[in-house]
């Protein structure tokens, strides 16, 4: 019956427009009762719908029509664009629309010209058209009007607070301190459809891991393409979201930008942004360094400051390391002492020296950054799984230790020193600057306590951090001389150069040997019991070093013969021990399953990871925890100690009948590298949690774990 009435009314046409708007009432409100010329005030066009009826957003979606306002304003008053409060996504799924249920207030700024004269009241009118729908759709039309007084003082109306409260529901621009957003095409187009991905990374401080209740993208309407309403959120990166949409093209080229509203709700509040995103043609490369900084913003910041301190102390200690002290200290102290009569000049000389040091470290940092940029992004740690790297470093450290013991000299640096010392004799600023350069050049083969740790940290970081750490070393190296040039009287507290330096040098050889033992232990992890051959080779190298020092460098005759014996010894030893016995360039494939992975009697019952093991365990209905780890990965070990092998997590894993798998990345096997890159990581640590529901995607845990993060993730995996 009703539809005949509607039909009848519709056929009567324009004669009864307000009667057709049977389910929506419209009122026009102003934020001020009196305004002065030059003001901008807000108009609120309020639409109240009957229960169950809705009107539409600026993009109505797959059906419907946006509400339109046509203003009839006196001269001197201009209306801005409609500011639309955040709409709802309205069902059904097969025809999804964006609109408002019950009520909405559309906000329009009205600008008053400064030329208006106070006194005359203004009549503001607007014609509205809209479509109201429930089971039926009915077009609505209404005229609304109100008056505004013009005065010399602005007077807010009683509706001002209500209008402001609706304006707060209008999505604002993106706040880069809260979220960073990226959009890209996931694949090439298939016909007129193309998958679009919008990713978001939370930029705020994450104190507990981010959990999102809902994320969606409501696109702005466009004539040439439509972003489909269906949203796929099945992939969820840590502390962010990945939203997949299908774009259907009507005509023209694929869009280069997409505009709309991103709406996010989670345990860090609700954020709604009106955004325009550039669509990249491919997925961006994940940047692991910044990801780790995001996942645990507090920890890396602390360690950065700590590492800067280590770098500074390391640089300071470099001064008394044998390679630098005997030569540089004398020269610098020389110019400090000599120019005692001219304090101002001495200070400038000290600063010039510091500049020389810093410039040199700047160059060194650039070299390291360049090498990294050339494709060695895998991170600092991974080299320790590489046999060539470990063996070379072990040999080098042994040679440095033997050098400190005085077994032989690095001939090259000795010669460089002779000619360089000529230059440093030149007094003045260029001499001081060159002293700084020389100090750095001589310091580089030397490592000092603290320094290795700081540099090791720096190598895995982004370019600015590398630069920062290197400059801190430089500051440490130059600090004592700047201080001394400021106050030459302090010279008397320094020990005088002398025989103690030689003893100190030999003493420093022992920490070097300790380093070698640590490296040898890593090599044992690579070669197993075969590491014996490497040991024998190292003794041979030591023997060769002694021959070199004793008979080539310090010998008086038969130096060529000694050199020949030495060369034969090294070549033969290398060929037989390293190539023949050890096959040193190939790591021994250790059989992981033969080793018990369990840490004590009540430890987690780890099994070796394979992709098949994950599939099998999930098929059997178990949640699966996978720890991607490596012997050389300090963070992995810390994670394991503090957050995995702890009573509460052990108990929880038992209770939920979870399967725990350990993926050992110590030697960087290809299948684990692939699995890591599938989850956007360039290296370990990575802890994955596959929920009990076999269709659910894995939960990716942050790189730095706390018991709370692990336990709450385990909770999520059970539900």
């Amino acid at each position: 019956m009703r539809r005949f009435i509607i039909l009848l009314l519709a056929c009567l046409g324009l004669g009864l427009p307000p009667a057709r708007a049977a389910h929506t009432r419209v009122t026009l409100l102003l934020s001020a009762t009196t305004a002065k010329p030059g003001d901008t005030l807000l108009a609120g066009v309020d639409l109240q719908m009957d229960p169950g009826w809705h009107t539409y957003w600026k993009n109505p979606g797959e059906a419907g029509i946006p509400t339109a306002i046509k203003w009839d304003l006196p001269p001197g008053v201009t209306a801005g664009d409609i500011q639309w409060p955040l709409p709802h996504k309205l069902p059904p799924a097969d025809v999804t629309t964006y609109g408002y249920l019950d009520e909405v207030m559309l906000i329009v700024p009205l600008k008053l010209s400064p030329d208006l004269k106070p006194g005359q009241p203004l009549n503001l009118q607007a014609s509205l058209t809209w479509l109201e729908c429930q089971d039926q759709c009915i077009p609505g039309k209404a005229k609304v009007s109100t008056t505004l007084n013009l005065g010399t003082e602005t007077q807010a109306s009683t509706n001002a607070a209500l209008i402001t409260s609706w304006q707060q529901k209008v999505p604002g621009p993106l706040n880069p301190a809260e979220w960073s957003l990226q959009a890209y095409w996931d694949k090439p187009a298939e016909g007129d459809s193309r998958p679009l991905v919008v990713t978001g990374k939370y930029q705020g401080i994450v104190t507990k891991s981010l959990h999102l209740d809902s994320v969606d993208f409501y696109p702005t309407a466009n004539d040439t393409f439509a972003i489909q309403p269906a949203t796929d959120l099945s992939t969820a990166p840590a502390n962010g979201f990945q939203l997949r949409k299908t774009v259907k093209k009507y005509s023209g080229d694929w869009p280069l930008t997409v505009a709309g509203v991103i709406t996010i709700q989670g345990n860090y509040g609700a954020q709604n942004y009106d955004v325009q995103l550039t669509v990249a043609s491919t997925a961006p490369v994940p940047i692991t360094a910044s990801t780790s900084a995001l996942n645990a913003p507090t920890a890396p910041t602390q360690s950065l400051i700590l590492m800067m301190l280590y770098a500074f102390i390391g640089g300071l200690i470099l001064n008394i390391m044998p390679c630098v002290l005997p030569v540089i200290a004398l020269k610098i102290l020389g110019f400090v002492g000599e120019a005692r009569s001219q304090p101002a000049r001495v200070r400038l000389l000290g600063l010039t020296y510091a500049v020389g040091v810093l410039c040199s470290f700047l160059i060194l940092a650039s070299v390291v950054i360049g090498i990294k940029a050339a494709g060695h992004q895998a991170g600092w740690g991974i080299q320790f799984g590489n046999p060539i790297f470990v063996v070379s470093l072990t040999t080098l450290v042994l040679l440095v230790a033997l050098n400190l013991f005085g077994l032989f000299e690095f001939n090259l640096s000795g010669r460089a020193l002779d000619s360089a010392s000529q230059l440093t004799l030149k007094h003045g600023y260029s001499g001081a600057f060159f002293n700084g350069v020389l100090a750095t050049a001589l310091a580089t083969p030397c490592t000092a306590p603290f320094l290795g740790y700081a540099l090791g940290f720096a190598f895995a970081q982004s370019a600015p951090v590398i630069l920062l750490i290197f400059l801190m070393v430089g500051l440490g190296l130059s600090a004592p001389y700047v201080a001394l040039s400021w106050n030459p009287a302090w010279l008397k507290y320094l020990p005088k150069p002398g025989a103690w330096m030689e003893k100190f040098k030999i003493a420093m050889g022992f920490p070097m040997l300790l380093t070698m033992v640590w490296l040898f232990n890593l090599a044992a992890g690579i070669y197993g019991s075969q590491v014996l051959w490497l040991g024998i080779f190292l003794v041979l190298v030591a023997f060769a070093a002694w021959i070199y020092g004793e008979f080539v460098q310090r010998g008086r005759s038969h130096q060529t013969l000694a050199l020949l014996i030495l060369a034969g010894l090294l070549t033969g030893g290398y060929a037989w021990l390293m190539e023949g016995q050890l096959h040193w360039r190939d790591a021994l494939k250790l059989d992981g399953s033969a080793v018990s992975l369990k840490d004590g009697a009540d430890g987690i019952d780890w099994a070796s990871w394979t992709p098949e093991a994950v599939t099998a365990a999930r098929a059997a209905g178990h949640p699966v925890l996978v720890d991607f780890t490596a012997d050389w990965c300090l963070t992995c070990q810390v994670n394991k100690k503090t957050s995995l092998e702890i009573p509460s997590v052990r108990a929880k894993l038992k209770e939920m009948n979870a399967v725990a798998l350990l993926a050992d990345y110590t030697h960087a096997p290809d299948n684990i590298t692939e699995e890591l890159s599938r989850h956007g990581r360039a290296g370990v640590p990575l802890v994955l949690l596959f929920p009990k529901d076999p269709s659910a995607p894995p939960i990716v845990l942050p790189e730095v774990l706390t018991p709370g993060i692990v336990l709450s993730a385990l909770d999520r995996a059970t539900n």
Partner: protein
Amino acid sequence: MKKLFVLLSTLALAATTFAVDIGKPAPDFTGTDINGKTVKLSDYAGKIVVLESYNSDCPFCHNHYATGAAQELQAQLTAKGVVWLIVDSVGTSNDSYRTPAQARQEWADFKIKATAWLADPSGTIGHLYGMKTTPHLFVIAKDGTLAYEGAMDDRPETDGDPRTAHNYVKAAVDSLLAGKPVAVTKTRPYGCGVHYAE
């Protein structure tokens, strides 16, 4: 029950996403018209076919018929051998559902000049083609491929004369009849959402 519905509508959506595309063969269907006659798309092989999702309670759709513009176009095109099928996918629980008898009455009242009115209360044909709005139009070329999909014209209004607008359907059919490529193959459909059965 609800799960089943979600599953079915997901399947339907998946079907619409992949089945219907410009230049691809339009999927065949079998329907029943308001006179109880079985209608198959493949019956019209070799002819140009226009599909129109229809619900005259929707003010957009209604305006095309109340003004007589739709009937005029139907008469003009069917005279040239074009087949025009009205698809009514409104579910039986909706106020806009028409029983076959009511539909026959409406056909007579509006003097509809289409080839047939297909009763599709299950939404099978509507979902198959991904019909979103009333009206939402599809033009199928003589070789059975889809030549146009989208709005009736470039005038999304509920009143006034549609004859003043650029009609995409007429343009597409005229191009096909003249053996020329269709200039506009896809537009954003406007109107009310199709009131499918829940």
